[in-house]
C-alpha cells in the first residue's frame, strides 16, 4: 500500500516539475538556480543514490560543480550531459566518465532526460550550499537539563508534601500536649479508659471470626486460582531483543504495512520473522534515522547504532557499500509462543478471514518494544470464534456451505464456531 502511494507521490512530483519546467524555464541557460526548488528536486530524483556529504551508491554531491571544475576542469555542460544520459557520455570515450563508472562498480546512473537546464541549475545550487554548522552540543544539553528539571520538580513536590505532613503531625502533637496541659490545669481527669484490646474482642466474637475465615479462604482461593490461571500465560511479555527494532517507527511513523515484511503471514502458518535481506531493501539507503525520530528515551545515536547492528549481522559494509559475506544471524527472542499441541495458521486468519494484525497483536504500530498483547489462551481463541462472523463474501469455497448452514441455523451470517471452529481436532493434531 505504502509503496503504491510513494510511487504516485513520485510521479506527481515529476508531473509538477514538468509543468514547472514548461511554464517557468524560458531562458536556455539560467545561471542562478533556486536552492529551495533544487532541494525538492534532489530529494525526488537523486536522494535514492546520492547524499550530499556521504558516499552511497553514487558519490557525495556537496560542491560537486566546484569540485569538477577545480579538479577535472569539467563544466556544467558536461555535468548536464552526464545527468541526462551518463551511458552516452561513457560511450563517447570520456576518460573521467569511464573512471567514475568503474569506481562505482559498473553501475550506470539512471538517465534523467526530463530534467531541464533550470532544474539542473536548481539542483546544483542546492548542492553548492554550505553544510549546516554541526548542531550545537548546547541544545542537546539544554534538553537534558529540561528533562532533569522535570525530575527535580517532582522530587521537590514530594519533599514539600512530606514536609507538610510532618508539620501537620507536629501540630497535632502540639495541640494534644496543649490540651492535656489545659486539662491538667483545670484538674480534669484524663485517665484513658483501658478497654478490651481490639484483637481480644475480635477473637471473642465468633461470628466475626467465622466470617473473616470464610472471607480469607475465598480470597486466597480467588488469588490462587488467578495465579494458577496465569501460569504459562505470558500476556505483556516484553523481552529485550538483540536489536532494538521499533515497530513504532516502521509501522507507525512510516506506515509500512505489516505484511510488507511479514509476508509469509499471507500464505503460511507462520507470520515469519523477516530475513535480514528484507531489512536491507530499505536500510541500504536508510543508514541513519532523522533527527526528528529521536525521542527523549532513545537518542539518534542509539537508533543509528541499532542500524549498525543490522549491518554487522547482514555483513554490509556501509563505507564500501557492499556485502562482506560475513554474516551473523540475529537471535530474536520469540514473544508469541503457542504450545506445539495447538495448531494456528496465520494465512487462515489474515488472508481468508481478513482479520487485522492488530486484533490479536494489539497496537503494534505504537509499540516501541513489542509485548504480547493478547493472553493467547484457548478461552480467548474460542470467544473470538464465537463472536466473529465468517467472511464468506466473494469466496466460492463458502458459497454452498454457507447457504445450507445458515438455513439450518436460521441465521444471516455464520460465526466461526457454527462453521466448526470449536471442534477440538481443528486446532489439536
Amino acid at each position, binding site marked *: 500500500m505504502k509503496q503504491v502511494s510513494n510511487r504516485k507521490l513520485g510521479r506527481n512530483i515529476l508531473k509538477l516539475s514538468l509543468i514547472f519546467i514548461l511554464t517557468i524555464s524560458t531562458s536556455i541557460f539560467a545561471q542562478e538556480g533556486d536552492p529551495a526548488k533544487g532541494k525538492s528536486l534532489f530529494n525526488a530524483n537523486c536522494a535514492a543514490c546520492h547524499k550530499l556529504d556521504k558516499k552511497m551508491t553514487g558519490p557525495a554531491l556537496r560542491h560537486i560543480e566546484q569540485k569538477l571544475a577545480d579538479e577535472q576542469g569539467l563544466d556544467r555542460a558536461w555535468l548536464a550531459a552526464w545527468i541526462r544520459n551518463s551511458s552516452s557520455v561513457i560511450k563517447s570515450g570520456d576518460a573521467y566518465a569511464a573512471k567514475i563508472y568503474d569506481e562505482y562498480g559498473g553501475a550506470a546512473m539512471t538517465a534523467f532526460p526530463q530534467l531541464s537546464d533550470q532544474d539542473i541549475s536548481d539542483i546544483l545550487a542546492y548542492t553548492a550550499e554550505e553544510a549546516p554548522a554541526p548542531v550545537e552540543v548546547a541544545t542537546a544539553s539544554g534538553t537534558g537539563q529540561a528533562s532533569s528539571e522535570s525530575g527535580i520538580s517532582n522530587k521537590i513536590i514530594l519533599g514539600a508534601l512530606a514536609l507538610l505532613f510532618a508539620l501537620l503531625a507536629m501540630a497535632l502533637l502540639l495541640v494534644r500536649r496543649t490540651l492535656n496541659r489545659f486539662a491538667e490545669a483545670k484538674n480534669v481527669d484524663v485517665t484513658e479508659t483501658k478497654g478490651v484490646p481490639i484483637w481480644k474482642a475480635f477473637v471473642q466474637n465468633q461470628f466475626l471470626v467465622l466470617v473473616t475465615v470464610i472471607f480469607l479462604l475465598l480470597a486466597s482461593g480467588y488469588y490462587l486460582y488467578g495465579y494458577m490461571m496465569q501460569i504459562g500465560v505470558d500476556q505483556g511479555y516484553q523481552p529485550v531483543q538483540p536489536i532494538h527494532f521499533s515497530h513504532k517507527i516502521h509501522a507507525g511513523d512510516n506506515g509500512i504495512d505489516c505484511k510488507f515484511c511479514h509476508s509469509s503471514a499471507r500464505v503460511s502458518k507462520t507470520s*515469519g520473522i523477516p530475513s535480514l535481506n528484507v531489512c536491507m531493501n530499505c536500510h541500504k539507503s536508510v543508514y541513519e534515522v532523522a533527527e526528528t525520530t529521536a525521542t527523549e528515551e532513545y537518542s539518534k545515536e542509539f537508533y543509528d547504532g541499532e542500524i549498525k547492528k543490522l549491518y554487522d549481522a547482514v555483513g554490509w559494509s556501509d563505507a564500501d557499500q557492499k556485502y562482506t559475506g560475513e554474516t551473523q544471524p540475529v537471535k530474536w527472542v520469540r514473544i508469541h509462543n503457542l504450545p506445539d499441541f495447538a495448531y494456528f495458521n496465520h494465512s487462515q486468519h489474515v488472508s481468508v478471514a481478513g482479520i487485522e494484525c492488530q486484533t490479536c497483536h494489539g497496537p503494534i504500530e505504537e509499540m516501541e518494544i513489542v509485548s504480547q498483547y493478547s493472553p493467547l489462551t484457548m478461552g480467548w481463541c474460542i470467544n473470538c470464534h464465537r463472536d466473529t462472523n465468517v467472511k464468506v463474501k466473494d469466496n466460492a*469455497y463458502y458459497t454452498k456451505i454457507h447457504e445450507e448452514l445458515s438455513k439450518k441455523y436460521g441465521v444471516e451470517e455464520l460465526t466461526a464456531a457454527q462453521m466448526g471452529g470449536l471442534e477440538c481436532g481443528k486446532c489439536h493434531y
Partner: protein
Amino acid sequence: MSSNKKYWKSVEELNENSSIVETLQQNEFVEEIPTDEFLGNKESLESSKTTRRDFLKYVGFSTAAASLAACEGPVIKSIPYVVQPVEIIPGVANYYATTIADGFDFASVLVKTREGRPIKIENNTLATTSGSANARVNASVLGLYDSMRMQGPVKGDSYISWEDLNAEVSQKLTELSGSGKQIVLLTQTFASPSTSKLISEFKQKYGNVNHVVYDAVSESAALDAYQAKYNERGLASYDFSKAETIVSVGGDFLGDWQGGGFDSGYAAGRIPTKGKMSRHIQFESNMSLTGANADKRVPVTPSQQKLVLAKLYSEVVGGSVSVDLPEHILTAVSKAASQLKSVGSKGVVVTGVQDVNAQTVVLEINDYLNSKAFDAATPIKIRQGNDKAVNTLVAEMKAGKVGAIIMSGVNPIYTLPNAADFAEGLTQTELSVTFSLKADETSTQTQYIAAAPHYLESWGDVELKKGHFALMQPTIRPLFDTKQFQDALLNWTGNDVSYHDYIKQTWNENILAGSSFSQALHDGVFVSNGAISTSNGTNATATATDDKTFVGGIIEDVATGLGLNKDKETTTATEQTTTTASVSGASAARALASSTASAGLELSLYTKVGMGDGKQANNPWLQEFPDPITRTSWDNYLTVSKDDAKALGLKSEHVANGGLNGSYANVTVNGTTIENVPVIIQPGQAKGSVGLSFGYGRTTGLKNEMKTGVNAYKLYHNFNNVQDVSVSAAQGMHEFASVQLHNTLMGRGDIIKETTLEIFNTKDKSEWNAIPVVSLNHVETPVTSPEVDLWDEYDRTIGHHFNLSIDLNACTGCGACVIACHAENNVPVVGKEEVRKSRDMHWLRIDRYYSSEESFAEDIEKKENISGLGSSLSEFGEMEHASDNPQVVFQPVMCQHCNHAPCETVCPVAATSHGRQGQNHMAYNRCVGTRYCANNCPYKVRRFNWFLYSENDEFDYHMNDDLGRMVLNPDVVVRSRGVMEKCSMCIQKTQKTILDAKRDGREIKDGEFQTACSAACGNGAMVFGDINDKDSKVAKLLEDNRMYHLLEYVGTEPNVQYHTKVRNTTEA
C-alpha cells in the same frame, strides 16, 4: 473364543515337579531388588551426616524449587535466515521430483520438503514407468538423517580432506595404469546414461579398467536369458493390467522380483469390473506376497517349479515332456495351461526360478502367446549385475591381479557368500576405495572410505526402461562433507565440470532431442520417443557376451550343466516347429524337465518387503515394519512347513503374554552353517522346502538395536537362491516380535467379507454381502436402520464428510501405506521388546488373515456342526491349525472414525470427540491416559504411549538424536508419555486442502483430499474423499455393491469402507 490350551513359556514348565517353576510361580520378580547395594553397608549408613529429617527437608525444598521453576516459561529464540531463499516460505512445503536408484530400489518419487528439509517421500504421479514407491522407498527419507552416516572422507582411522583423497587416489591410479594390473570399478546397477559415459571416459584415461556391476540379489539368469533371445542385456517388462490369466512359477512379482514395481498394474486387473477380473495362479514354495494374493496357490518345492515350467511349456506351446510330479500339481498345471490357451494373448507367465532355461521357457511361452502383458521391446534396465564377472573378480583379486578397486553402492563383504575370499583379495590390492554412506562391513576394510551423499543430496539420472529416463536432483544441501562417486570420477579423469553439468550435457546431447532439461527436471521423468540405447560400456557385459557360445539360443555351459546336450541328441522328433526361438524354448523345457528333485530339504532365499537386500538395515521404520505374511518385525527367520517342523522337532508357538516363540535351528548349506536361526512354522510353505530372507544379520555401520537376524547371504552360493539344505534343531527358543496372533479366521467372515467371482456375478448382493440384522419387536431389522440405533443421528450432509475406502481386491498388502503413515504422523518406533508386549504404535496396520478352506462357507459349516465338548475341542483345534495351503486376505485397519464412536462416550475428560467432517478427533493435551477408549474400541486401533519415545536414551531410534528428528512433520505433534493416540484421518492434510481452497476462493475438486495412506497407495486400493460431493469417487464407492463396514452389527457406523474381496475361482 475361549481356548482350552495350556500355555507355557518354556519346556521347564511342562515338568510338574520342577522347583524352578514353583519358585517362579510364587515370585513375580525373579531377581531381588538390590537393596544391599545401598543399605548393606551399616558403617557408612551410620556415619552419614544426613539425618532422615534433613533428607526430607532436601526433598521438600527441591520439589518446591522445581515446581516454582516450572512456572517460569523458557526463553525461546527465533533465528530467521540472513538471506531467505526465494523458494522457501517458512511453514509451506515444497515438492521436488527425484529418483531413488540405490541399486536395489528404483522409483520416481516426489519429495516433500519443509524449510529445506526433506520429510516425506510421495508418489510422482507424472511418472508412469516404474511402479509406485514401496515401503522401503517411503522409508528411505529416514536414511538421510541416519546418525551413523559418514561425516567426511576417511583414510584409515582419520578424516582427510577431499583434495588429499583425490590427489592420492589419482596419483595411485596413474601409477597403476601403466603397471598392467587391473583397475576395477565394482558398482551397483546405476542404469545411468551419464555414469556409463563417465566410466567409459575413466577407462580411456586409465586403460586397464574393468567395470563390474554387482547386484547383491542377482537376476543374472533372467538377464542372460533375455540377452540370449533379444541380444540386449535387460529384463522383459510386464503390464499385468492387460492380463486376464497370470501364471507365476515362483515369481514374487508383487515383491522384488526383477526389480519390482508391477503391483499397480496387477491391482488394476484385480478389481472386478463388468463381471471380469484377472485370474492369478501361483506355483511357489515360500508363502510370498504374490502367492498370498493369488486366486489359486499351489505349494511346490523349488525343484518342482522347474518341472512345472517344463510341463507348462509343453502343454501351452507343444512338445511333450515327462515330468515326475504329484498328481494334484499336474492337474493344476494342466488347468493353468488350458486357461492360458483359452485367453490367448491375454495370458502371461512369469517365473522367479534363477535358471537360464526357466527364464528362457517363460520368454518363449509369452512370445508364443503373443501376450499383451509382455513387452520385450522396452526392457527394464535396473538390474545389470553379472554373477560370472563377480566370481572372476574375486578369483583375480585373490591372485593379486587387481591393483586398485573402487566400489560404489555395494557391500560385498556383507552380501557375498565367499566374503572371506573377497576380504583376502582386498588385502592384495594396492588401492581400495569405497564410496559408502556408512562405515559398513566392506568400507571399513578398504584404505579409503569416500563418504557418499544420500540420494536426496545427489544428482543423477536413470534409465529405468529402455527410453524411459528419470532424473535425480538434490533436495537438501549435503548434510556432511560428502562427494558422490561420479563427482570423484570426474575429478580423477581431470574433468572439472560438476556432475550436474555433466548430466545436463549428456542429456542435451543424447537424450532430450531438443526438449527442455528444466522441464525434465521438474517432471523427474522423460520418455524419449526415438530409440536411444545407452551402451553399458562395461567390460562385465562384454565378457558376459563374449565368453559364451550359444546352443540353440541358450548358453552352453548352463545347458551342459543341466544335461541338455545329451538330451539334444536323443530327442529331436518332438520338435514340431522350425523357428529357432521355439527350438530353444523346447530344449530349455526339456532341460528343466530333466532336473532332479533333491533328496533333502530345499532352501529358497528371498527378500522381505521391509528389508530388501539389507541396504537400509539401520532404518528403524523398516526394522519395525511387520512382514506382511508373518506379521513379524525385527527379525528374519527360517520358514518351515508344519510337517517338516514336526519331523525336525522344530516348534513355533504363542506364549501366555501373547508373544510368539520359535525354536532355533542350525542351517547348513554346502558346508556353511548358520547357527541358531529362529524358526517360524509358515502355513502354506511347500513341504520339503524352507525359506530364509536376505537383508538381516548386518554387523557393522548400524546401531546395536538394528543388528537383528542372521545373514542369509552366507548361504547364497553361486548366486543361486535355491540351495540344498540340511536343518537341525538347536537349543533354546527365540522370542519374536509378532503383531498378529490370529492363526485362522475361524469362520468369522464378517471381519473379512469374501466371495467368488461366480457368486459375485450371478447372485444378489444380499447373499454375499448381507447387511447384518437385529430383531426389533420380533422383526428382523438391518443394523443400519435408525430405529435400532442407540444414538441420535447427527446431520452431516453439510460441508465435507470424509470417507476412506479400502478395496480388499486391490490391496496387495505391500505396506507402503504403513510407512507413509509413520512419516506423515511422526509415529514413534518402540523397539523389539515393546512390540513383543503388543505396544507397537502403528496407527495403520495391515492384518493378515488365513482361512483354511477354499471358502468361508466350509469354515462356517464346520463351526455350526460342532456338537459337544469333545467334538468342539478337536474341530476347533483343526480350524486353528492353519491348513497346509491357506487362503490369505490382507486388510488394512486404522481408526474407523465411527460416527457413533464407542471410544468417545467413555472418555472421562472428553479428550476424544467427533468432528462434523466425520473425523474422530483426539486432543492429546487433554488426554489423561485412562485407556478406557482403547478398551472400548472394537477395532483395537488406539495406541497408548507407554513411554516417552522421543529424546529418551531407552529408545535410541531416530527420535533420540537431533539429526533423526529432522524428519518429523512440523504440522503434527510428537506425542508424549501417557497419552492415547490414533489415526486422525490425516486431519492436517484435509485442513490444509480446505485452507488452500479458501485462500484461492474456489470449491474443492475430487481427488484433492488425500490421506498419507491413500496417497501412498499406488494400487488404487485406498480412495479418500468427500461423500457429500456426490460426484466424487468415494461417494460412488459407498454405493457399490461390494461395500461393507467392519463389524457392522456393532452399529458404530464407521467412515472407513471396505470392499468385499472377490476371488476368481473360475477354472477353465
